[in-house]
């Protein structure tokens, strides 16, 4: 009774009041439409190359399929295999071990390098140092993998240097040794990602108000106190980005491992990305490969979301 139909109410309103509102609505609608037109190409590409493959992978994971013959409904069978097969679980474990090298080392060394570059290495030398550190980012991963596999071989630079400095007893085939292959792959990943982290952290440091440092110095703070009390808290968002990018790189590693060890020796460097590829294209178990890929995707999200939350929370404080 009290609430009249909205159409009736709008008719009762004076024209002077409704005209501008209609124009505003039209304008907003037009702007929205224009926005969609601009977004559409990117959205179409994202849907075709990201969302649709994810849906397809999710769908395939419920089938037993060799990629050609009729597929058979498998229900959750492939997921059960992923979580019960010791070899596949070990492969997932390797990915988490790589996080130490792909994420921990570049972020820590990146912080040290960025601090050194900001405080001590300035001018032309600083520019050269930044370029050298960032260079691995522009080298194709395949080329990096090949170059490092040469350097880590028994006739490579690493063993030669060890020989020169009197550590010949440590010489070995780093990528062919069961105990050193995974860390050696990790070192390659750390080398690739160090430059990215350093540049991101340097950019973050440049935004820190220099008055904070001056105030700290007046209060008698040394370089370490400055680092832990000012630099580190102020870089929380940048560190969050670094950790996110490098954790994803660790969990989804493929190129470097494929080129340098192909998962060997034995299965010591087998990682989920490579296992997915082998299951799909060598074993022709597309369903199991898709299930492992879905599990990997969920793991990436589970690992990355807390990091993102932590970084954002820091920004809000």
């Amino acid at each position, binding site marked *: *009774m*009290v*609430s009249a139909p909205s159409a009736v109410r709008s008719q009762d309103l004076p024209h002077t009041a409704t005209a501008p509102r209609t124009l505003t609505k039209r304008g907003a609608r037009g702007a929205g439409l224009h926005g969609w037109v601009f977004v559409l190409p990117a959205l179409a590409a994202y849907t075709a190359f990201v969302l649709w493959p994810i*849906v397809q992978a*999710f*769908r*395939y994971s*419920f*089938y*037993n*399929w*060799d*990629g*050609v*013959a*009729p*597929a*058979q*409904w*498998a229900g959750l069978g492939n997921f059960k295999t992923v979580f019960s097969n010791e070899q596949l679980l070990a492969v997932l474990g390797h990915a988490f071990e790589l996080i130490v090298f792909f994420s921990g080392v570049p972020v820590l060394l990146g912080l040290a390098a960025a601090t050194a570059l900001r405080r001590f290495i300035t001018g032309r030398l600083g520019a050269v140092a930044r370029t050298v550190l960032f260079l691995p980012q522009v080298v194709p991963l395949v080329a990096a993998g090949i170059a490092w*596999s040469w350097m*880590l*071989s*028994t006739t490579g630079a690493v063993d030669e240097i060890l020989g020169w400095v009197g550590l010949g007893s440590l010489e*070995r*085939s*780093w*990528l*062919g*040794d*069961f105990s050193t292959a995974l860390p050696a792959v990790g070192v390659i990943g750390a080398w690739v990602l160090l430059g990215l982290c350093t540049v991101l952290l340097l950019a973050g440091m440049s935004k820190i108000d220099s008055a904070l440092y001056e105030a700290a110095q007046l209060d008698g703070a040394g370089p370490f106190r400055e680092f832990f009390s000012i630099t580190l808290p102020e870089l929380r968002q940048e560190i969050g980005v670094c950790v996110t990018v490098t954790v994803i790189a660790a969990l989804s590693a493929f190129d470097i491992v494929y080129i340098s*060890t*192909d*998962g*060997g*020796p*034995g*299965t010591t*460097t087998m990682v989920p990305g490579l296992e997915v590829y*082998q299951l799909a*294209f*060598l*074993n*022709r*178990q*597309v369903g199991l490969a898709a299930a492992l890929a879905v599990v990997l995707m969920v793991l990436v999200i589970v690992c990355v979301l807390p990091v993102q939350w932590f970084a954002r929370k820091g920004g809000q404080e």
Partner: protein
Amino acid sequence: MLKGPSRLKNRRPSLLRRHSALAGLLTATLVMTTPAAVQAASLRGATNGTASFAANCGTKPVTLQGYFETGFPDAIDLAHLFTKQYPSVTWNIRQDAFAVITQDAPLVLSGPNPPDLMRLPTWSGLVKDHLLMNLDGYFNTFGWDKFPASDLASMRVAPSGAPSGSGPLWGMGLNYSMTGVFYNKALAAKIGMTSAPTTLAQLDALLAKAKAAGILPVEQFDSAGNGGLIFPLQYLMADYNIASQGSVSSINNWIFDQPNKDINTSANLEAVEHLDTWIKDGYFNSDANAVSYSTMMGRFEAGQGLFIFDGDWESGNLDSSYAGKYGFFLFPPLTAGGKQGAMSAPLTYGIAATAKHANCAAFFLNWVATNPAARLLNVKEGGSNPGGPPSLAIPGVKPGTVTAQTLEAGQVIAKDNGAMGFIANATGSIDAEGWTPAVESLFAGHETPVQVLKFVQNAYKQELSAP
């Protein structure tokens, strides 16, 4: 009063409801639809083997679609020679590494434009999925029954995809490889090796002698994806199987996926144990687990290593680039004068089930095996046996060359009935998932010989029983 707001609420589905709807839609999609390529492939499979088996390429211009393996220029040269003799036939050849072909084969063969002639890795999955042309019709048309049956056995597979070794013919070899031991003549002379060892004990002694003289006894590749220690292992398996059973048939039966075959036998265990003693004695390059095939060849050609365990596809290269510097012998038997075994595999090519020019492709395969010019080219460039009817002589090669030695070895293996397929080719992924990690673990001392065979048999069973 309450009606309005409640209606509004009903019009706007809650987040939960929207998700439920999406989940329902997704589940329905998952249940009702199967992966898309499936039905098309099934339809294609129905056309399998329906081609007419004409024995030539006809007179109209034909462009054969080829998918060859990189690193084998002799196949390309054979194609060009064929065009010279049959000008109406031209080629459109795509080349890829063997590993790429292995991965791509099902997709390429099930695609809209499959190759007429394709280098093929393994057969069972492709046959099961109806992707290959059944060549039995051509077998009769061209009289391939005159070819040695053992040459074609590995390309016969039951229509269900297993077992192999019998059933319809799905491919042919461009040539037939022989494996054995290559040696560096200069290093052999240094340790007083004047002739090839005739027993395994003699080979053991040579290895020990080389080690004592500070010469690397064996340079071998064994990096991930390329378990090269499988070569000496299978030679040793042949020796111990011949000694205990008189033949290599149990190894071949395992390779051919015959029912209930187990690689974990006492003879094979002795073979792995023998290999293990070589590893522990330090006869191999210490970095074998990180050495690729090309690195091994580079080192051997540079004079590193007395022996490599390899196949005759290197014969042409060694003869042309390092004439007189290298020799070849078959892996010696356990006892003097005993039968010998070796991996002898065809350079396998097949025809797509829906190939446009299947007749011409089959005619080419027959031509390669029977045409004198093609056989000569095959031997001179490929260094391998051209196959074909035994009544056709193998084109002459310069005596004393590596090629001559490998061809002679082929005759010994034929006489001893010691030809084996590759244990690494028993199933599509037994190399990557079974043998390579197993021998790498053995090399590193992480697995015992018993564990190696159990691991491989387990991988073999898992793959064969996969739905």
